[in-house]
């Protein structure tokens, strides 16, 4: 006597991205906190010292937010025009910012009024940064120049006029106080040494450069411009290493994860992409509501802050340990489990005689009904709300099994308004799913056959039937469109692929048999 074979629920391939360590890591963030700013957010910078406040530059203000605050803890409003590039010094005490009015302002984080004003640029200053010795400031401006300033004296130390277009990005070395790199809209990156009076290295990015990033080791430089992200090896004289083209609009911002193993790039195409820095493959992707202008990661990746063109600041905080555990805790076993497991883990001794008990087969509810040939009840159990909504593949598998047994008609027939409405609801939800369509179309046809006589008696059922009809009409339109696209693609492929000739020995002679005879006769000729 064989045991009952339960219904096979087909395992469908999981759609969407694969679960990897990276997706787990980057998905482990809470729902974003969104804060409306006054204008497009052009720069976000985290303070290097705890508690890691961050400065958000938007329109004519710079707001400083605490790590968990929704309101700014401090605001700098003394700008005549749009502010740019609010950056902290490495001790977190000072903040420098450029401005559309060409004046560079230096603030004390605790104060309100600018400590110093550096005047000298003739056009908007988009980039300002501290050098690693903390006493100098680098600025880059739309007047094609970049300058070094002395903080104590507020005097200009040097001016470099090598770029031929706007300078929109720059970065100073953290290891050497004299080195800094600027990127410009003239497509070049230039490495300057303050000890020399001109650039020591020039790299061509090919597009207007929007953002620069130095690796912590400062051997590699990443630049973003146009749709490309390029990695340069500075130790090899600026040799390009990789060129990445994963965005379909201009890349605006670059950022490195705290351990330095992942590179993040944000773009106007509303995506943030996460790259693995060993093979430069995209391992994760974030979507945002609007084009992204600025992006920053808190130390230890505690939060991801993104500023967008629609002046919304989005802050995602990492889930704490308890919160991430809560999810796995749902699978925690019920307390009665311990009672059932009692004695199960007993290991028999050597002399013990084992009395084996037949293992009781556990069957799902619908299988129990199927075993008893209760077809209607089996379908009812499979249509229970939870199964129907969460695991439609189980419902579909039961319908398929009933169809295989030739009893689907019996199971579908004889339903009241409520039961029929539930069934139609399920059909409307799933009939156009390509995974379930072959099974559900048969079921839908049967339902229409069985219940055509009662159409018009119930407004609920009638409404659902109309919805089903609409759905199918729409689906037919979709299919038609898809077929058209497919036809177009086919013609394109056919014309673009090179035609390959296949060697065919029989081509010249139509009949293979004649050819065979000649080959047989050949040795005879040679013999004679």
């Amino acid at each position: 006597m064989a045991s009952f074979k339960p219904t096979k629920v087909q395992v469908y391939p999981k759609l969407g991205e694969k679960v990897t360590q990276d997706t787990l890591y980057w998905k482990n963030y809470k729902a974003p906190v969104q804060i409306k700013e006054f204008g497009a957010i052009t720069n976000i910078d985290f303070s290097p010292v705890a508690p890691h406040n961050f400065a958000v530059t938007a329109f004519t203000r710079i707001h400083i937010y605490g790590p968990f605050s929704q309101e700014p803890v401090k605001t700098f409003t003394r700008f005549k025009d749009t502010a740019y590039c609010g950056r902290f010094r490495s001790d977190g005490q000072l903040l420098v910012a450029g401005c559309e009015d060409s004046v560079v302002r230096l603030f004390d984080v605790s104060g309100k009024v600018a400590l110093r004003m550096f005047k000298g640029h003739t056009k908007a200053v988009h980039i300002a940064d501290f050098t690693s010795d903390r006493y100098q400031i680098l600025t880059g401006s739309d007047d094609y120049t970049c300058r070094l300033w002395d903080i104590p004296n507020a005097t200009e130390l040097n001016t470099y006029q090598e770029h031929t277009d706007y300078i929109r990005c720059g970065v100073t070395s953290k290891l050497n106080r004299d080195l800094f790199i600027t990127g410009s809209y003239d497509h070049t990156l230039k490495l300057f040494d303050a000890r020399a009076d001109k650039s020591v290295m020039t790299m061509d990015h090919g597009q207007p450069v929007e953002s620069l990033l130095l690796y912590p080791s400062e051997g590699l430089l990443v630049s973003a411009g146009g749709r490309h992200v390029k990695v340069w090896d500075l130790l090899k004289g600026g040799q390009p290493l990789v060129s990445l083209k994963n965005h379909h609009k201009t890349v605006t911002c670059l950022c490195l994860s705290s351990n330095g193993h992942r590179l993040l790039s944000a773009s106007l195409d509303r995506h943030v992409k996460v790259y693995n820095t060993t093979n430069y493959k995209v391992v994760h992707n974030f979507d945002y509501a609007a084009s992204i202008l600025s992006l920053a990661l808190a130390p230890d990746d505690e939060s991801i802050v993104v500023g967008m063109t629609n002046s919304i600041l989005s802050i995602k905080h990492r889930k704490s340990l308890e919160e991430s555990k809560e999810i796995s805790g749902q699978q925690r076993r019920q307390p009665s489990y311990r009672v059932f497991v009692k004695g199960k883990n007993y290991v028999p001794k050597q002399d013990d005689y084992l009395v084996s008990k037949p293992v009781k087969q556990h069957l799902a509810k619908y299988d129990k009904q199927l075993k008893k040939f209760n077809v209607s009840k089996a379908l009812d159990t499979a249509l229970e709300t939870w199964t129907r909504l969460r695991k439609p593949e189980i419902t579909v598998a039961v319908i398929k099994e009933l169809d295989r047994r030739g009893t689907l008609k019996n199971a579908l027939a004889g339903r009241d308004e409520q039961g029929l409405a539930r069934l139609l609801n399920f059909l409307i939800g799933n009939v156009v799913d390509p995974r379930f369509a072959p099974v559900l179309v048969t079921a839908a046809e049967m339902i229409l056959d069985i219940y055509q006589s009662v159409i018009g008696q119930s407004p609920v059922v009638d409404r659902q039937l109309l919805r089903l009809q609409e759905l199918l009409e729409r689906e037919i339109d979709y299919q038609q469109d898809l077929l058209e696209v497919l036809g177009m693609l086919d013609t394109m492929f056919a014309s673009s692929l090179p035609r390959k000739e296949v060697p065919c020995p029989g081509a010249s002679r139509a009949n293979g048999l004649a050819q065979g005879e000649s080959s047989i006769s050949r040795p005879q000729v040679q013999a004679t």
Partner: protein
Amino acid sequence: MVEHGDIRVVHRGGSKINFREPVITHDSRYLLCASGECVKVFSTSTEECIHDLRGHTGLVTGVLLKPSNHLQVYSCSADGTVRLWDYTDGILIKTYVIGYPVYSICASANHEGVIFIVTPMLSDKRSDLFQLVAVDLPQSGDQLVEARELSAVLSDVSSNPAAIVFGRGGEYIASANGLHLEVYFFKKQKPYRFSFKEDNKKGGKNTFMCVACHPKDDCIATGHEDGKIRLWRNFNHKKEYTYSTLHWHHSAVSSLCFTPEGTNLLSGGMESVLVQWRYNQESERDFLPRLGSAITHITVSPDGALFCTSHSDNKITIIQSCVKVSAVIQGLVKGESVRTDMMVDPRSKSLVLNGKPGHLQFYSLQRDKLLYNLDIVQQEYIHESGLEQFEVVKAAFDASGSWLATVEERKQKDAELELNLKLWAFDEQTQSFVLNTTISAPHEARIIAMCFCHATDSQTTMLVSTSKDGHFKAWQLAAPAHTEADEGPSWSCDFVGSYHGLVPECCCFSADGSLLAVSFQEVVTVWSPASWELLTTLSQPPKAVRDLCFGRLSCSKYLLGTTANSLLCCWNLLTCSLEWSTSMDISLLLADPLTENMAAFCCQAGSTDLFVFKPSEPRPVFSQKAVCSGKVTRAVFAPREEMLESCEESSQWLNHSQLYFLTPYMDLMTFTTKAEEDRLMASSKQLVIDDRVAMTPFYLLLGKHRQQEDPDSVSGLSAERRPLPQCSVAIKELLQTPAHVLPSTSFLCSMFVQSLLISVTDGREETKHAEEEMESEKEEEDSEGEMESSTQRQEQAPLGGQAAPTLTKAQHRELKRVKKLDHSWFAHLLHS
């Protein structure tokens, strides 16, 4: 062409065992069933076939225990004889020649020396009317007896043995045929007829299917086509008979049987559920569901302890009183059609083909036994006629037997075709195939052919399937891209190929796996599986290619193909030209995997000829005309377990492997040589199966000891170990005597232990003599002390008996000499 006298076509195994109802012997130890032209005797406990009762020259149509002697059995056959056998020793006792084909047999204890047989109507040979005839068996000492005293009892009976049965110790006989039930009372010599109308109003079909009579009561149970069971009573009256109806079965009741005491009625049918009805309390029933396939016969052992059901899938199930299945005797399942080709599992060397619905059967050719069924579909089989269910239609093994690919399909009338391609990996631990990958809808239409790449050294395993949708696909085993710990490698599609929108038919890999040939109607395309490049095309004369085969070993440069317009072509792949071709209507071409030989079954004038040839040689190695009638479409080369060393040219092709084929009538045939047959006969005579020892816990204990002993005796220690004849006798005595007649245990114990002691007379003497020698040297001890010490020695000796030093012959002789001297000297001393 040479006639090969010593190669014969023989039936090989797989005969039906469910043709007629089996018989369980009185002691419930043996089960006898008709199987083809012999009667097979099975052991009910071990499921093993103990011996065949051979002698009939036609199909055996019935087996019956002799009512007066339960150690003898009658068998009747379509060859017109009834034979009496001693089934324990397998000896033919008597042959009664009837002269007409016998279709079934029955007898009862009431009728001494008379058997009742069903034969065709004597007057009219061609009509399918049958009559029941009583045969007086002449009492004669001869082995071959003519039984001519026939007297017709009933005319117009059914040839189905289930429709004729004796009632109440042989007082009457009940026979059902069509819509009539006829009861014949022997005392009154009067038949009563009861009839049904064709259909009643509800559409039920009243045709009688089977009859059973209650052993004690006047009650006849009849099974009907609509699934009803009717219990007839009072049937010795023409008018006042009554019947009650039981209805559980939804389709025809094929077998009915009362238990020997008459307390229960067993019924079975298409549903494959054994139903047990309580007699007189018919509302209570027990079920034994899911017995595998439709029940055709039910038998109960004479003591009522065992039930036995025959099933339509050539299986006999032995059931212990409706509780649990204790044994299953399974023959080769031969359905109406073998959808999968015949294959040989490279691991177990067993024949593989589809058997039970949704299963693959692995059938050992050497032992003529079904090894196991592999469930491919893994769905509950619904026993209902007219229901389309998943069927295994294709299967293929890879060269090492570690992968099995199967295709199952289901086609409903107006629904889409459902196809599943499943790939099974061989699991070393469980020694069976485990499902690895299921590909649902691998193709849009039916899969025509499928083959694995046979190269044994290649890194990847590859499967190619061709389908009616105009594509062929290559499947490859690959590790998943995102490696997760719990997921092993799985199969995925590697390449989809097509050629001018034509339908691919056959596919074949070359022996080294470097070439793939796929035929598209009359064009053969050759591909390179490494790069999926179309290397060349070879065109046949304008007719579709039927078979495609690469040569093996030294002939691997040849590609052979057969076409629908009876042509066999052989291409040389080095020159891409036709090497030779010949006109033959070949229905099947296949290559021997172990040698260069190819076998071609050639259909000519209603019968099939076989040619075995090498592609490189113009003359066939072997040919035989008229192997069988009809067209052979299934055949396989099965590798031999041990190679034959025949040096005769004509039979050399059978050295490595054996050719099996299925005739259109689903008979499994093979070719054997004379030498092999002789050897087989010799070995079968030696074969004695001892199943007398029942599997009891005590047997297990003893058996274990015996097994432990065996290696000891082999390892050469047997020389030291002495046989213990007395003790084994004592144990036997102890165990065979009933406990209540045995003396008290304390008394027995000492006896028992004593019997276990080893007598060491020889060693003791030697030690004694050695002692005497020592004493003679000391010359101080008196005789009493000596006696004491010697008795002490006697007591100790048994303990150290085995450790006593063994002496060489020379030493022994020396000792004897010393002993003689000693004695004389000692005697002298005593005298003085």
